[in-house]
């Protein structure tokens, strides 16, 4: 294999590949990236056995071929090369090394045979559709904070992507929850997604997927099967196993009869929560919301360290209510609101509270109160 490629192009292609590679690895080949050169293109493939990413870039290929080298090391080398450099990659089959030359720098890296590299088995996807990058970005960005890290409830360690019945017909829906808060985000159902099986997309995949979604004009080809999900742009293909488990029936969790309505400026609310929570050193900081006629008092009382109180002007017309929440959860939920006021719908101080943006039901959040 022999090729030359512009440093910036190479760095971009490698960045995604190396981030999939697990830092702590017991299988040496999994630390490597598989480089395959053919025609006028070079591809970089990396995997952790659950996720596989293939990144393609244009290159001047003098001699086709394939080999594997340490993903992290190659990425580091390319990163440190000066911008605009032309990088030559040459595989020396005799010494089993890959030579990287740019300007006056030369490196040679140990290789492992390409045959040892585990390539994820291709599978039949039952559903294929195209989704706009901004739509997917919104679906996953707004849901991912609620993903659980609890290992015994492994089926919560991802975002449940499925087709559901929204108020105005079928929607593509993403749900995540850790048992304390829940996010339910809807997007218009893309053509071709109708019969898609519901899948739980693992946390790490959600993180990797996010890197494909920065371009507002991009269209992502999504393929889904019972066991795998694939997201592809013209240059990057991200394939991931999905979590093998049943996502709980979240519809029971979303309160239907919460009538006490609070409307508040989300930014002001978040700032106030952040301020009063400062006095508590506890890891789970409880903030008390005391609601009365158009008035909200946020307070924290930490016996060991101090107390804080702040008053906000709000829209609230129901009877008095005192309810506590974990400050972190309130902040995370409030930060999802970016266009209109945050609307909270309460029931009692012990029952789940619902939050949404204005009257928009395409993104709703549920949070469990905390005893205060």
């Amino acid at each position, binding site marked *: 294999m022999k090729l030359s490629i512009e440093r910036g192009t190479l760095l971009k292609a490698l960045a995604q590949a190396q981030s999939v590679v697990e830092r702590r690895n017991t299988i040496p080949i999994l630390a490597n990236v598989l480089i395959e050169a053919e025609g006028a293109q070079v591809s970089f493939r990396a995997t952790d056995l659950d996720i596989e990413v293939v990144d393609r870039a244009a290159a001047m290929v003098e001699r086709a071929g394939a080999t594997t080298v340490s993903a992290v090391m190659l990425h580091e080398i390319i990163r440190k090369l000066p911008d605009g450099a032309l990088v030559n990659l040459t595989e020396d089959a005799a010494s089993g090394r890959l030579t990287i030359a740019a300007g006056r720098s030369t490196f040679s890296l140990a290789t492992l045979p390409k045959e040892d590299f585990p390539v994820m088995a291709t599978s039949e996807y039952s559903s294929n559709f195209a989704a706009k990058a901004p739509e997917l970005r919104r679906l996953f960005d707004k849901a991912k904070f609620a993903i659980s890290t*609890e*290992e*015994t*409830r492994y089926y919560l360690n991802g975002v449940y992507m499925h087709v559901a019945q929204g108020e105005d017909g079928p929607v593509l829906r993403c749900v995540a*929850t*850790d*048992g*304390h*808060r*829940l996010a339910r985000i809807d997007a218009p159902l893309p053509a071709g997604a109708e019969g898609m099986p519901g899948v739980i997309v693992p946390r790490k995949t959600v993180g990797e997927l996010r890197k494909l979604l920065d371009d507002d004009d991009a269209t992502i080809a999504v393929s889904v099967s019972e066991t795998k999900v694939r997201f592809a742009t013209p240059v990057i293909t991200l394939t991931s196993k999905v979590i093998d488990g049943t996502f*709980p029936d979240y519809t029971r*969790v979303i309160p239907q009869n919460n009538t006490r309505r609070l409307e508040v400026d989300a930014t002001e609310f978040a700032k106030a929560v952040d301020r009063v929570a400062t006095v508590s050193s*506890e*890891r*789970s900081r*409880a903030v008390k919301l005391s609601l009365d006629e158009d008035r909200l008092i946020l307070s924290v009382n930490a*016996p060991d360290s101090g107390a804080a109180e702040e008053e906000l002007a709000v829209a609230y017309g129901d009877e008095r209510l005192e309810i*506590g929440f*974990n400050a972190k959860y309130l902040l995370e939920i409030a930060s999802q609101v970016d266009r209109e006021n945050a609307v909270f719908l309460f029931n009692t101080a*012990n029952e*789940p509270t619902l939050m949404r943006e204005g009257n928009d039901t395409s993104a709703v959040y*549920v949070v*469990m*109160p*905390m*005893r*205060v």
Partner: protein
Amino acid sequence: MPALCRDCLTQFPAGTRCPACRSPRVVSHAELDSLSIAHMDCDAFYASVEKRDDPSLRDRPVIVGGGSRGVVSTCCYLARIRGVRSAMPMFQALKLCPEAAVVKPRMQVYVQASRAIRAMMEELTPAIEPLSLDEAFLDLTGTARLHGAPPAVMLARLTKRMEEELGLTGSVGLAHNKFLAKIASDLDKPRGFSVIGRAETADFLKPKPVRIIWGVGTATQTALETAGIRTIADLLRWDRADLVARFGHMGERLFHLARGEDHRRVSRDEKVKSISKETTFFEDTSDPDLLDGHLWRLAEQVADRAKAKGLSGRTVTLKLKRGDFQLVTRRHGLTGPTQLADRIYRAARGLFDHAGTKGPFRLIGVGIADLAPESAADLEGDLLDPAAEKRAAAERATDMIRERFGKDAIIKGRALR
């Protein structure tokens, strides 16, 4: 070389016999008057208490521990001669020493004896760090003027008082830090008094196996052996950086301890770090119902303890010992601390189901760690488990009933399994 008689506490300049009472129990060392960090370890504590309280046991081997399926908790020196050791399974101990008297532990009595010893220590110094009921570190630095005698004399007086007033013996290690003091107390057991001074520290440590270092267990020992390190002398040949690179945080400790350097203070910190309960079965079992019943009872005992101490835990731990003695431990981090038996049980049950090991088991244990005050416990419900709130309320109600009518007034059916 200053010397001290441990029987009449006479101090004299040199000699192997006390000039006053002719006793041979003399300790002499060049640094005797300047060392002040001590480790006091009672000799076969539980067994000694039993022998004291029942003179008929005095000349018999005594093993303190539970049932024929249990393990040896402590054994007296007569039993040790026969090869019995603590933590040994009882059947094995009885094979080695069939005529031994097996006594069920009487923790209350041991706690009382321990308190009496602690009170005597308090008279010597406020800097006491108890390691368990029967051993403690003492820092007597700067107490010589107060007591009108160097630490060595005060420590000899302490063990003498323990013998006279409590009928219990102990061994003392005196050195210039905790690491060496602990090693010293083990050198001359029982009724010992050993000194490791600054001058001989290096020579003393060199030939010792690495196992002597506190914290070096079987796993570390194997790792060290792979690196060709068997003795402290081997360790001394390694650079600090190399040790750290190879053994991480432990490498740093090994580097210093191999040189006899230990700057840890004797601290009174009596904080509880975890609460756990375990049970050894009469017969190895893999019966899921039986194990489930044990899980519940253990979770309940842990919860009772946590409630009594006003504590809660953020982590639930599960310990399983298989029939072949292989130990499996699992831990689970909760989203918030708990002191409820229900949550502890459910987490432990989840750990058990995912433990990835098949029985039969001979021991099962449940615990909580990463402790927090109870005011921070169980404040949040679970969206996906709406019944949790009700179960918690039921548990609180059960607790109140028990408080009033006794522990057996109300129990879960699960506890009968």
